[in-house]
């Protein structure tokens, strides 16, 4: 049994014995679930709403979860697929069902790459990290970021360029 699988088993057993420990499962997997959902959601608000529902459903179902040696991530991705399918069914209001998909090996690799990238964002110099967060997470315009940081728009664009170059280098790309 790999360390990850053993960690997963302990996490699940702890949460089944004491629901308050479910936050440990959440902490470990929320970013991965969010990335998976976000690629299939129309916008951030929907991605956040669906991610919330995934963990609410996981919490509600953890008592019935049977440990079969599969990664907890696979269980959460399956819940996420079903939640997304519900969302699309409601949205399209058509009889056909959106095919629930779970990530294949290629997508799992992409998810892990993005998680690593986000860890590198946290290690960026303060101003660069703030620009990345405001631009991509808060979806602020360059003008809004400039006003918030009390910098010129040109300076913010420079910070944005430096941040992306640093991230690319950290991820093994050529600078």
């Amino acid at each position: 049994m790999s360390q990850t699988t053993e960690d997963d088993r302990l996490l699940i057993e702890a949460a089944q014995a004491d629901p308050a420990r479910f936050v440990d499962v959440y902490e470990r997997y929320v970013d991965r679930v969010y990335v998976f959902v976000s690629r299939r959601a129309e916008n951030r608000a929907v991605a956040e709403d669906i991610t919330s529902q995934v963990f609410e459903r996981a919490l509600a179902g953890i008592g019935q979860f049977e440990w079969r040696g599969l990664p907890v991530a696979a269980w959460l991705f399956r819940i996420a697929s079903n939640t997304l399918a519900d969302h699309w069914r409601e949205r399209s209001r058509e009889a056909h069902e959106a095919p629930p998909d779970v990530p294949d090996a290629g997508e799992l690799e992409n998810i892990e790459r993005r998680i690593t990238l986000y860890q590198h964002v946290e290690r960026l110099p303060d101003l660069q990290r703030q620009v990345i967060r405001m631009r991509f997470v808060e979806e602020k315009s360059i003008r809004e970021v400039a006003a918030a940081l009390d910098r010129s728009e040109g300076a913010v664009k420079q910070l944005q360029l430096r941040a992306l170059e640093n991230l690319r280098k950290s991820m093994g790309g050529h600078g």
Partner: protein
Amino acid sequence: MADRPLIDRLDDTIEAIVSRADATAALRDPEVAPLARVAADLRHYPSPDFTARLRAQLERRTTMTSVSTTTAIREGFTTVTPYIRVREAGLLDFLVQVFDAQETFSGQGSGGGMHREVRVGDSMLMIGEGTGAGIMPVRPVSFHVFVKDVDATYARALAAGATSLGEPANRPYGERSGYVADRFGNRWFIATALGPQSVAGALRMVTPFMYAPRAGDYIDFLERALGAVTETHHEEGGRSLYARLRIGDAAIELGEAEPTPGSFMLYVADPDARYQRALDAGATSIMPISDEPYGRVGGVEDPLGNQWFFSRPSR
């Protein structure tokens, strides 16, 4: 394009990525392309505020789970069941004609009139008929109801004697909805979801819609008294526009206006603890905890006049 500075070309690409527009032009720009790939991955960067908020929500929920278990809920019911008091019979017929409701139980109520339990889609309602003595006052309440075809349901409601409060129209919050009042004054906000911004996905067919003059304060009270979890709270200029709270596995919606209080049955594992918690949060007792033929039950009234009855059904 290439004669423009790199910082501007990159920013155009990021703008397109963030707004989910076509950013493929960047792939033909050898300076921008490698950075655009990093930028495309950043679009899915989870908001730290969001993950912290969701964590807090789950923590509150797990605290709730330790004091209540779903085994206490009657089969077919959810945690919260609205109890509608009306002066005489007739509401059941209205619900059957308009929403295809089904009566699942009827019997003599403790106040002397009929007590009915009604299934509407995946939701349950209780109705108390008659003006006899009883703790729950006769008073109209409001509901948000999702249906397949709002226009047809609205027309059926008018044919069944309802008064129009607003013809079906497409609303900015992703619904087509029409509003009616039944002959007892209960208001039914009938809706069909139009798009992803609709709250339909988070609700069952029938959800109580409550009002509070200062919604923020009332939300705070519901969280403390009932362990409610706020899922959505939209505010604008210090005024609450809309909030959705979850109590156990049921939802209630809240708007800022003069209250139209109602009565609610909550199925819980430990009514004694929940009753005490509500009193500690500022509610007033209207029914001390006691063992009744149908289960152990106690009730409180909150500062707006809403009544909450905590019940653990008999096995």
